[in-house]
């Protein structure tokens, strides 16, 4: 499972990073916590992202699973990691649909491995659609209240 979905050559893989894709297979959280040298980890929807906080500086890839697009736990996992200073690749994998890309980007995801390929043009349009956002999140966007008051 992990080998297939972390392969950036997969159709529909979207990545918003300048560094080279990480090619080490992601291991489960349990496996990661049980060994010392893995640099890529996969979080299931119910895994506690905070368990990774002591290890952020040696992680290059965290893959967060979305078993169903309606399962929104991964959004919080992403923010928890970004808020703690994680700067490596944060990948949403699974039932990721074009209409979820924007909130996922705002929560800090910077790569996407959807099970069904996402049309590039539709994706670009979806990501560019909103110029302003009301709340501060894990992206660099200035919220509307900041724009209003400086």
């Amino acid at each position, binding site marked *: 499972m992990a080998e297939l979905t972390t392969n950036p050559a997969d159709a529909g893989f979207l990545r918003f990073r300048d560094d080279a894709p990480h090619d080490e297979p992601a291991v489960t959280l349990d496996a990661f916590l049980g060994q010392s040298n893995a640099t890529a980890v996969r979080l299931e929807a119910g895994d506690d992202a905070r368990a990774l906080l002591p290890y952020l500086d040696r992680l290059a890839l965290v893959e967060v699973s979305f078993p169903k*697009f*309606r399962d929104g736990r991964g959004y*919080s996992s992403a*923010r928890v990691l970004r808020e703690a200073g994680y700067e490596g690749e944060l990948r949403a994998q699974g039932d990721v*649909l074009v209409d979820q890309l924007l909130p996922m980007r705002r929560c800090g995801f910077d790569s996407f491995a959807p099970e069904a390929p996402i049309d590039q043009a539709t994706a670009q349009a979806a990501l560019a659609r909103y110029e302003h956002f*009301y709340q501060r999140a894990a992206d660099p966007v200035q919220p509307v*209240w900041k724009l*209003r008051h400086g």
Partner: protein
Amino acid sequence: MYKYDEYDRSIVEARIAEFSDQVARRLSGQITEDQFKPLRLMNGLYLQLHAYMLRVAVPYGTMDSRQMRMLGHIARTYDRGYGHFTTRQNLQFNWIKLEDTPAILRELATVEMHAIQTSGNCIRNISSDQYAGAAADEVTDPRPWAELLRQWSTFHPEFTYLPRKFKIAVIAADEDRAAMRLHDIGLQIVEREGKLGAAVYVGGGMGRTPMIASLIRDFVPFEDFVSYLEACLRVYNRYGRRDNMYKARIKILIHELGADEYRRQVEEEFVAVKALGIDPPQAEFDRIAAHFAPPPFEQGLSDAVDRSDPDFAVWLDQNVKAHKQPGYAIVNISLKPVEGIPGDASADQIDRMADLAERYSFDELRVTHAQNIVLPHVRKADLYAVWQQLVEAGLAEANLDLIGDIIACPGLDYCSLANARSIPLAQKIAGRFADLGRQRDLGELKLKISGCINACGHHHAGHIGILGVDRKGTENYQLLLGGSGAEDVSLGKITGPGFSEDGVVDAIERVTDRYLAERQQGERFVDTYRRIGMEPFKEAIYG
């Protein structure tokens, strides 16, 4: 009231483009119904029994006359000439075509309206006290707090796919007119040492497992307000149940964790969240609050009202409430005529109410959670003229908070989730108690009907509640007594075996007869029930 600036406008415009694109992708088959459903729900679009239904947001129940007229226009142009005001202060249209929704949204946007997050597993329309800004008993106007939350919750990226829907109510008075403690989060703005902040109640709700919200924090000052709510939601998003949609509301999480453990987790999360700088500055609160400055009330007006017309006097006593400004009053327009459908208003009535608001109420209207309309700021000298025009429009039913002022969900006449019809039953009950003198003798009696266990008709919170169920293909109605959605919040208890439609009307009459026989001086129905308990009523019903 709040007016959009360029940012608000740009966000709503982008939303129209986004949703129009989603509709186009659905109509062309690029996305399946399964994929489209959560997207359309997040824009208030359901597929109901007869057609699509569009729920339009009325943030904290406040509208001006242009917005109200736009609802009338949409009813006439895209629907079948009427709309239905809901228990969360919104309005829904029952006969919408999917292909028309982009045009409807564009029309709504011209008056700063939308359907954003009126359904779906996200933070819904923020509801509030329909007397905000007018009530004599409020600490402050709660609507700036509600507007702040509207903005915070709109397209919140982390909380768009919550375990289940999430409802927030904000009040600022001890009298609770918004069923605050029956919300996922209920906020009461209070003053402490000269500073305003929120008492935060979490985990209330109706549905199949009704619960009353627990006090999680007694005071959150403005500077921590958004952070604290973000922490409340994050704990829910991470740990709310996703294995069973019937156990996915935050009330179940709090029930399973216990309020103390939930509070501990929120406080821990709050420490992390507070450091992120997500709280808007005081200047933003002040900017929003300026939109809710009191209208230019005339000073020195008389409080005298000519009561010589007896019908007017009855309406005055029943539907008109005290205003904080001398010489003014709050007018309630009941949408519960005896033969009518609770909460429905025709396009013409919608226009008439808009006209009255423009002329007599500083251009403001409110929608109430009891599915009525409020003109919040009417000069007492104008009350008689307003009443006369309401009479002409068929909107002068003087039954506010009486047994005829029934909350009812659309039920099986419209709703695909319903098990039984609600509206015909509401009409039969209203018919049985049609005599206004009899209703007034019974006094405050909140009767609430839901056509299924989802409890959209608030049956758990009715002094008398009715739950429609499907018993082997036949509509059957359970009777509950003793609930309240007000500051004396409580959950009703089922009397016993259910009834047919006619049977439940008879049972209600036996209940009210027993109340009249038992009541002591000054007791409302629910007070008597609380004093004497269920047994005397059971005996009256089942013999």
